[in-house]
């Protein structure tokens, strides 16, 4: 089955809430192809859903780029969420459970960080936000 899946990098634009659904579907397909466990697939797709929604709501839209990565022993899925929005002024606060400026639950950033293995965020006021997450197979 997986032989037919193209594992090259794929980019999904995020400009509407239908695109957030498409990001979830793309990430799920790739996570299944690299044989993440069911729980890890679920965690990664959930994190991707949170971050794609953030890209849309706070970043004013952007892109999600999904790549298969390898470190010799194992494979993983890396996703980069990038937007050219206002950026995050206080990153420490933004990563706190329950903090929100958008009327949500304030779990998007902090919660998705717990769901993945690697989490990196580059942001500055006025310079957009770029979040990279990776989930490795066990």
């Amino acid at each position: 089955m997986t032989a037919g899946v193209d594992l090259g990098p794929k980019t999904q634009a995020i400009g509407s809430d239908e695109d957030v659904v498409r990001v979830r579907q793309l990430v799920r397909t790739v996570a299944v192809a690299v044989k993440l466990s069911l729980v890890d697939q679920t965690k990664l797709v959930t994190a991707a859903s949170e971050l794609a929604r953030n890209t849309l709501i706070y970043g004013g839209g952007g892109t999600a780029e999904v790549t298969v990565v390898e470190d010799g022993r194992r494979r993983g899925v890396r996703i980069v969420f990038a937007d050219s929005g206002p950026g995050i002024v206080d990153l420490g606060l933004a990563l706190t459970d329950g903090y929100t400026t958008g009327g949500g639950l304030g779990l998007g950033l902090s919660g998705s960080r717990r769901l993945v293995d690697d989490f990196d965020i580059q942001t500055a006021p006025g310079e957009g936000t770029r979040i990279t997450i990776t989930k490795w197979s066990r």
Partner: protein
Amino acid sequence: MERVPILKIGDILLVSIQIDMSDQTAVTLQEDLAERIVATGCHGVIIDITALDIVDSFVGRMLSTIASISKVLDAETVVVGMRPAVAITLVELGLSLNGIRTALNVERGMELIAATRDDDLGYDDPEDVESGTAATSS
């Protein structure tokens, strides 16, 4: 936009979510359900999420909101069919699903609603009814 159908079975409204919902679809479901509760006078709502492979913070909040709205409209909400991987992910994400009652499947959900209604109406305790103090004590 897709819409989630709401089925009426006796005194219960059954919602089986079979699609990957966009945020707008989730909000519409919330509003449709409130209207159907009032229009039908149903006292129970069962939301079957067997087919959902993720529940993120947005859908989690929708479930909590539906439970609160139906409570105000004199109906009990039970969420059934949550997958184990979804439950694990929800907890790690930090979502507590406040006020939501759960059951393993639709049948157990219907039993739970029936039992709750009986308790509320005092059907189970004929002695209390006789003594005349039934309504206030529990």
